[in-house]
């Protein structure tokens, strides 16, 4: 059996303030209060502000999250680059163009001016050669007329300028309504952008990819099979991975870690050599906490959709090893309190390997940006997780009680991910983990993800999974 390794990872954000109103919360709240709608539109960020926002720079890999300064982060970042080696932050006009490039069903009609802007932006983009830019001209037209059609959505840029019309695909199938398809296409586009950066920025042959596993949150399907999928193969096709097929792993926010483990198992067993794990962004979560932001005089911070992709491949003697003997799972009988979940995921797998909690350099848990969550009363999610992990380390005797703050500071990190659960659930740390376990001085990174299964009203249970990444001994 070959050790599977994670050789490369890429992360992208698309800054989409115009689409933020189509997030689940704003789409319900804004139409019923004109004053709130005005406040919302007035609190949207410019592209330069979004690029300079330090958590976004951490997300695309420009700085390690432990190098973030003390908060507030709003307005704290200097002018920054939208590109890193393995990621970018894409402006909205380009992203609307990307939606049009990846739309095979005439869903998107771009305003002529926006189509021109998108063509100029994407034409000069480093990934232009991998995009079908001819589709942009075909997708341009009378956006206003399309937006006025029954069941269509108007899409905007620059606060309130009509940029596109987005059609439904069926007159009576709710699973093919315009709002649902916009979510799905935004997920496809961000996932595709992440995969394109993964292969292009790191010189990976697209034809070498055998399989793509999507851990995205969106449910692609029709009324006879809502959530039927398959975003994995959809993204494989869109990214030009001609020899690949794919499938989806669904597990609420926890999906990335089982996706990584399954990818590792496929490689270790010899079924496939190269498996991409990808997560596209979650448009419904845009503006989810906007009321807290407005109440505190802050900009609407949930104005980006994210994407993440990683390559799991055979042992190259250098890249971090995905330890399939270091997988933690949350058993049915384990109990659903946070300490019980963290014990199952963060402690038991280490004990089974004879490791202490101090043998892990970095714990990557749910790394939601607290500057987004705290104003709406949702607290600091990563800090809560690190307190629990540190308390468990103290209970095991790995540290004394007085060592809890040091454990949290040295082995934890501030949350830096947008509130798109699966991206925040450890997946966003992969580029940093790969760097820390190759060029850096870390030996082990513990990837821990949790999922709120109970939200689907089929069970009262939670779930979660963890996996250990370890420096390759060559």
């Amino acid at each position, binding site marked *: 059996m070959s050790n599977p390794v994670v050789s490369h990872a890429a992360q992208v954000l698309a800054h989409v303030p115009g689409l933020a109103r189509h997030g689940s919360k704003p789409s319900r709240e804004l139409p019923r209060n004109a004053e709130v709608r005005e406040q919302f539109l007035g609190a949207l960020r410019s592209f330069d502000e979004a690029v300079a926002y330090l958590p976004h720079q951490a997300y695309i890999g420009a700085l390690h999250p432990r190098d973030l300064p003390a908060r507030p982060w709003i307005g704290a970042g200097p002018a920054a680059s939208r590109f890193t080696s393995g990621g970018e932050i894409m402006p909205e006009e380009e992203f609307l163009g990307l939606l049009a490039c990846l739309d095979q069903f005439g869903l998107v009609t771009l305003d002529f001016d926006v189509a021109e802007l998108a063509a100029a932006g994407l034409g000069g983009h480093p990934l232009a050669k991998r995009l079908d830019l001819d589709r942009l001209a075909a997708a341009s037209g009378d956006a206003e007329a399309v937006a006025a059609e029954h069941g269509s959505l108007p899409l905007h840029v620059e606060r309130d300028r009509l940029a596109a019309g987005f059609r439904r695909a069926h007159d009576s199938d709710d699973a093919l309504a315009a709002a649902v398809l916009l979510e799905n296409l935004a997920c496809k586009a961000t996932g595709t952008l992440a995969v394109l950066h993964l292969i292009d920025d790191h010189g990976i042959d697209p034809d070498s990819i055998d399989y793509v596993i999507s851990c995205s949150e969106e449910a692609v399907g029709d009324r006879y099979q809502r959530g039927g999928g398959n975003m994995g193969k959809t993204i494989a096709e869109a990214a030009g991975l001609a020899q690949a097929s794919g499938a989806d792993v669904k597990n609420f926010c926890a999906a990335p870690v089982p996706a990584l483990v399954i990818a590792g198992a496929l490689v270790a067993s010899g079924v496939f050599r190269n498996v991409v794990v990808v997560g596209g962004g979650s448009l419904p979560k845009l503006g989810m906490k906007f009321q807290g932001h407005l109440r505190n005089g802050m900009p609407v911070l949930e104005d980006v959709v994210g994407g993440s992709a990683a390559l799991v491949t055979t042992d190259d003697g250098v890249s971090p090893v995905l330890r399939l003997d270091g997988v933690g799972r949350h058993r049915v009988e384990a109990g*659903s*309190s*946070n300490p019980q979940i963290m014990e199952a995921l963060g402690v038991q797998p280490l004990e089974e390997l004879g490791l202490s909690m101090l043998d892990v350099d970095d714990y990557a848990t*749910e790394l*939601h940006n607290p500057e987004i*969550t705290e104003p*709406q*009363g*949702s*607290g600091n*999610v990563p800090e*809560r997780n690190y307190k629990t992990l540190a308390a468990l380390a103290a209970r095991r005797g790995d540290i004394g009680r007085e060592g809890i703050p040091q454990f949290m500071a040295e082995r934890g990190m501030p949350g830096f991910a947008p*509130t798109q*659960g699966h991206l*925040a659930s450890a997946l966003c740390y992969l580029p940093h983990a790969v760097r820390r376990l190759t060029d850096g001085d870390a030996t082990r990174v513990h990837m821990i993800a*949790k999922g*709120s299964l*109970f*939200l689907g*009203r089929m069970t*009262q249970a*939670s779930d979660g999974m963890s996996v250990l990444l370890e420096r390759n001994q060559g």
Partner: protein
Amino acid sequence: MSPVFDGKLVIALGERDGVAGPAIAACIKAAGSEVVFSATECFV
């Protein structure tokens, strides 16, 4: 039976990182009251 819950019908709403709905429901039942609905919510 606790007088607080005496004769009451209870809706138990838990929070993912705090106390889950079923855990609240178990305490309420142990106190002798009836839980008519329990659920857990996630706020991130």
